[in-house]
């Protein structure tokens, strides 16, 4: 009387509608001697927002353009909505939405004309007017594309990407050049699409964008995935070990530890002044930015990237990125 049910997702390699939206294994692509994509594995589940993070030139766009069917791969297995992008046809394209990186085309048509025109390409389009409302361009519906601002232009790109009712939407660096308020409202739009059931694959080099939007994120560096997890878990627990910083005789010191309380107690016993305070004491948990910079091989400003050297003087010219992390105590300055 034992019945076995295949556990959901276990047979997810197949092309059925229950399979992952994107399944990539061992993807490689070279341009001449440069390995743009050097063995990437990715799996995007249906209904999630998946971010591909990485510096410029890390291979993000190449990867996404292979998934979109624009480029041919050198090696690897790729399945997007169950099909190989290299051979998939019109029916497959009608299930995708693509928002490319730069857009300055179609300048002479109005917003409404373009959205209506693109809607005719698809078998089951969304209502163009509803799409224009959804991206917040109602006021600009009769405006020619060339007169739109950068943020409005990008919203139009999204409108054209979603008017076909895609199952999977690609957003390639969608908010580059946005002012902070435009980014916030753009993020709200992307989240509302996910609530409608659209799977979204997003590339970005903005960490806060990945943190705000993505269910999971892959960090890509030099054509490889160096970390893949929920944004707040990227890099694993080790990358999030707190850093304790203090001043020892005017020299800035820092240490990474799993037990900051014990360290602070010992510091207090050893270095506390007459007022009972340790000079310049800070306990800091690495931010996503610190973790990210470490993952892509940049020296992080806040966290000590080298666990092998737990205590050392801080570099004289500590980088001060605009994150909240780079608080250098007054006393440490010469």
């Amino acid at each position: 009387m034992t019945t076995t049910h295949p556990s959901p997702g276990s047979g997810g390699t197949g092309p059925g509608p229950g399979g992952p939206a994107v399944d990539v294994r061992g993807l490689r692509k070279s341009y001449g001697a440069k390995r743009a994509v050097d063995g990437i594995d990715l799996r995007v589940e249906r209904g999630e927002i998946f971010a591909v993070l990485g510096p410029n030139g890390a291979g993000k766009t190449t990867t996404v353009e292979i998934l979109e069917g624009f480029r041919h791969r050198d090696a690897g297995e790729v399945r997007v909505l169950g099909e190989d992008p290299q051979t998939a046809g019109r029916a497959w394209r009608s299930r995708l939405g693509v928002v490319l990186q730069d857009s300055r085309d179609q300048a002479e048509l109005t917003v409404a004309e373009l959205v209506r025109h693109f809607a005719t390409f698809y078998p089951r389009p969304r209502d163009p007017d509803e799409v224009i409302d959804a991206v917040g361009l109602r006021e600009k519906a009769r405006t020619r594309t060339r007169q739109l601002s950068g943020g409005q232009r990008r919203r139009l790109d999204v409108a054209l990407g979603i008017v076909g009712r895609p199952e999977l939407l690609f957003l390639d660096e969608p908010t580059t050049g946005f002012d902070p308020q435009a980014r916030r409202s753009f993020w709200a739009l992307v989240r509302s699409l996910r609530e409608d059931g659209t799977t979204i694959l997003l590339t970005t080099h903005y960490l806060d964008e990945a943190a705000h939007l993505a269910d999971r994120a892959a960090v890509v560096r030099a054509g490889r995935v160096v970390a893949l997890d929920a944004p707040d878990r990227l890099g694993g627990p080790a990358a999030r070990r707190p850093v304790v910083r203090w001043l020892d005789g005017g020299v800035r010191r820092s240490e990474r530890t799993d037990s900051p309380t014990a360290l602070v107690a010992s510091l207090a016993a050893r270095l506390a002044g007459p007022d009972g305070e340790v000079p310049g004491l800070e306990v800091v948990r690495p931010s996503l930015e610190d973790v990210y910079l470490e993952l892509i091989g940049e020296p992080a400003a806040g966290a000590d990237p080298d666990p092998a050297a737990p205590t050392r003087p801080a570099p004289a010219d500590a980088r001060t990125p605009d994150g909240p992390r780079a608080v250098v105590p007054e006393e440490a300055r010469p």
Partner: protein
Amino acid sequence: MTAAPTVRAPRAAALPGTGRLGVERTRAELRAFFRERDAVIFIFTYPLIMLAIFATVFDGQDQGTGDYSVPFAQYFLPGMIATGVMLTSFQSLAISIAVERDDGSLKRLRATPLPAAAYFYGKVGLVLATSVVQTALLLALAAVVYDVPMPWDMPDAAGRLATFAWVFVLGCAAGAVCGVAFSSLPRSGRSATAVITPVVLVLQFISGVFFAFFALPTWMQTVASVFPLKWMAQGMRSVFLPEQAAALEPSGSWQHGATAAVLVAWLVVGLVVGARTFRWRRRDDG
């Protein structure tokens, strides 16, 4: 007795037909074309302005030899019609496709389920519509202002109109496919006009558009005979000039067979080269 539960994927709605999409593309192309004022002026009104200038400046100077000559405007009009067709087909497509490739329009369309054929149908629709309107304007200007006799008022009107129809259609088609093929040559959209305009200008000078073809040096006539514009202009002269004017052609006849052969040859060459070289993306875009 109960039917086995059948799990059926929701039936995919049918993709829109290529013909219908071709019509949609034509509408979008025409809209965008007429809104781009600079392109309209350069491509669309250029032959009108040229006809007006030349016919006014050379008013009263007949074109011909001692034996036979025709009024200047009447000789000039067929060349301008041929030029107009070359501009609205060849030049317009070569530039617009190069620009669309450069600015990402083509890539954006490639990312949709729009079939490639529908894109080209849209271009064909644009070429046909603009060529027809432009030719109609040229005829109106020539007839009303410069008293050029129209083929339907001349002997053998039916034959003339039939010749007009096939020269016009073949010329548009050859020009359009050559424009598609040529659009891959400019490295960027910005350089497209600079690359294509000189080609068009040189062809106009050697093909008997600005100067009477019979007055050109023989070697220039020979070079021009390789290209379609000379043959389109000659075909159009056979429509708009009296039968005796055939004596002004270097060969002494209208050469309809050769005209058709050269235009069809360019149509085939343009199709093959265009189909082989067409790219949806910029050259530097992988």
